[in-house]
């Protein structure tokens, strides 16, 4: 990202506009040039021009169209001068001379959004590995610099550059199509796109250094909803992110994790909750529930409760039943068991947990949930063993500290049966994506 003219308000505006239009502009130029790297370079060049022009004049009414036109003209000038570009230039000339060629219609609005959608599906093609899907999505659609993408995934800039080169090589060599999937393929392919966006969001949860990924993911989800307004799963993902986001400021206190039960609900962002609830009401009218809408609906119930005690656990358990019926994964079964603990008590929860324990033996939150349930049943030794196993399996320092605290509290419980404390509602608080367990 361009940060060379620091201190100018105009630069911030220009940068914001640039991020917003970057994906659209790159997408259109990939269609025109048939080459991702050439499109990226052309958009970067156009942005250098834009910084000067937009600061001295003003940001044009259609910045995406301006960037595309400028980028295309610069790229064609450059190609003319380069021997290696001559062949490509001839192909371009053929495109431009075709009657009502697709090369010149980006200024009219519609086709630009078609290109944008095409690029989303190319970046998230299932033949690409997940880490490549994520990197391409952030770089090409999110407009992040290679360095920014690298920092988001804790790798060096050169390693990320190599990763992007490999991903783009496969797209080109294998001829990964640049089009919106057919109706028959769409549900599965859309789910791949949504999973990538949700993975980006979750990477920014519980990590202050990577918090900007959450806003990147929300921005991308918003644009996807704009591009596919009749796909309720896309809207469901956006609602899921907004409802999770609404509680972010209450999830931490002095660096430590605050459980849903103990969160100061006055810190929740009402505007985000209202927007999430409104999206969910619109989704329900579509009558086509899916995994993301159901997860969002669960979050909507949590966000709609004035207190932990007032939570409609019957509703949440019913939603988990529904979610499990469409997506029978062990992690969803685990969340469902925790909800059963609230509706039917710890005995029923333990039965449900025992049934899935073999599948999730290496998942720390499974053992944490077991520990909590055993504690509520007064089985202190078994509870301690479960928390200790969870602590050994935990990935993040925050989780380890949290579990150490549970073990300490258990010791302080003495012989008391304990209040109906449920320390692992971290799970229902949406920190982990049930579709992609972080620790797997």
């Amino acid at each position, binding site marked *: 990202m361009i940060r060379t003219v620091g201190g100018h308000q105009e630069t911030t505006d220009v940068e914001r506009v640039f991020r917003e239009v970057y994906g659209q502009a790159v997408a259109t130029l990939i269609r025109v040039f048939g080459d991702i790297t050439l499109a990226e370079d052309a958009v970067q060049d156009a942005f250098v021009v834009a910084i000067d022009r937009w600061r001295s004049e003003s940001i044009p009414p259609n910045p995406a169209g301006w960037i595309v036109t400028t980028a295309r003209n610069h790229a064609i000038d450059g190609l003319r001068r380069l021997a290696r570009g001559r062949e490509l230039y001839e*192909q371009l000339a053929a495109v431009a001379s075709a009657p009502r060629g697709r090369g010149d219609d980006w200024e009219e609005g519609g086709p630009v959004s078609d290109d944008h959608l095409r690029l989303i599906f190319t970046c998230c093609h299932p033949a690409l590995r997940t880490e490549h899907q994520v990197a391409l999505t952030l770089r090409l659609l999110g407009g992040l610099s290679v360095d920014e993408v690298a920092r988001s995934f804790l790798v060096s800039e050169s390693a990320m550059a190599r990763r992007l080169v490999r991903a783009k090589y496969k797209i080109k*060599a*294998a001829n990964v*199509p640049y089009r919106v999937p057919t109706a028959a393929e769409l549900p599965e392919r859309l789910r791949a796109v949504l999973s990538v966006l949700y993975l980006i969001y979750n990477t920014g949860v519980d990590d202050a250094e990577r918090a900007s990924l959450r806003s990147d993911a929300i921005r991308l989800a918003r644009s996807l909803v704009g591009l596919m307004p009749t796909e309720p799963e896309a809207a469901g993902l956006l609602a899921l992110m907004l409802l999770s986001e609404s509680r972010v400021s209450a999830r931490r206190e002095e660096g430590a994790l605050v459980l849903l039960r103990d969160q100061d609900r006055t810190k929740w962002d009402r505007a985000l909750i209202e927007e999430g609830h409104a999206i969910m009401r619109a989704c329900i009218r579509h009558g086509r529930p899916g995994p993301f809408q159901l997860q969002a609906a669960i979050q909507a119930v949590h966000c709609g409760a004035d207190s932990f005690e007032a939570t409609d656990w019957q509703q949440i358990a019913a939603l988990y039943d529904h979610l499990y019926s469409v997506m029978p994964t062990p992690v969803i079964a685990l969340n469902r068991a925790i909800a059963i603990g609230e509706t039917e008590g710890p005995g029923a929860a333990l039965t449900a947990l025992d049934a899935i324990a073999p599948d999730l033996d290496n998942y720390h939150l499974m053992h944490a949930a077991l520990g909590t349930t055993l504690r509520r049943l007064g089985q202190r030794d078994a509870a301690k063993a479960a928390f200790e196993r969870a602590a050994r399996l935990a990935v993040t320092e925050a989780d380890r500290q949290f579990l150490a605290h549970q073990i300490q509290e258990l010791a302080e419980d003495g012989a008391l049966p304990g209040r109906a404390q449920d320390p692992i509602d971290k799970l229902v608080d949406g920190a982990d994506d049930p579709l992609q367990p972080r620790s797997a």
Partner: protein
Amino acid sequence: MSQYLLSTYAVEGEVSGAPRTPEAMHTFMERVIALEAEMDASDTFVFGGALHGPDAATVVRVSDGDVVMTDGPFVESKEHIAGFYIINADDLDAALAWAGKVVAALNHPIEVRPFRATGRVKDSVPPGA
């Protein structure tokens, strides 16, 4: 139009999912014949078939100007290519759809890899594909 190599692998001489009885072999061959007929009818099939085992292979190299032969495969490995198709397909999605049919017919996983035509095969690939 692009071209792709769809290849199957044997591990230590065994192709997983291969037919084990004469009856199974018969239905297997029927599926393969039907698949190749479908590929032919859609101008998808370029070339393909099964390979004899790596023990039947000979490596040829030039050493000090002389052609030298060595008995055995190029790479000593547990896995060896057991058979392949070269197909024409519009793009990776079309190739993957064919791959799904091949997997169903062979009952065996396959690798899909873009094939870059050289020499006279190039005539069958339009420029820019």
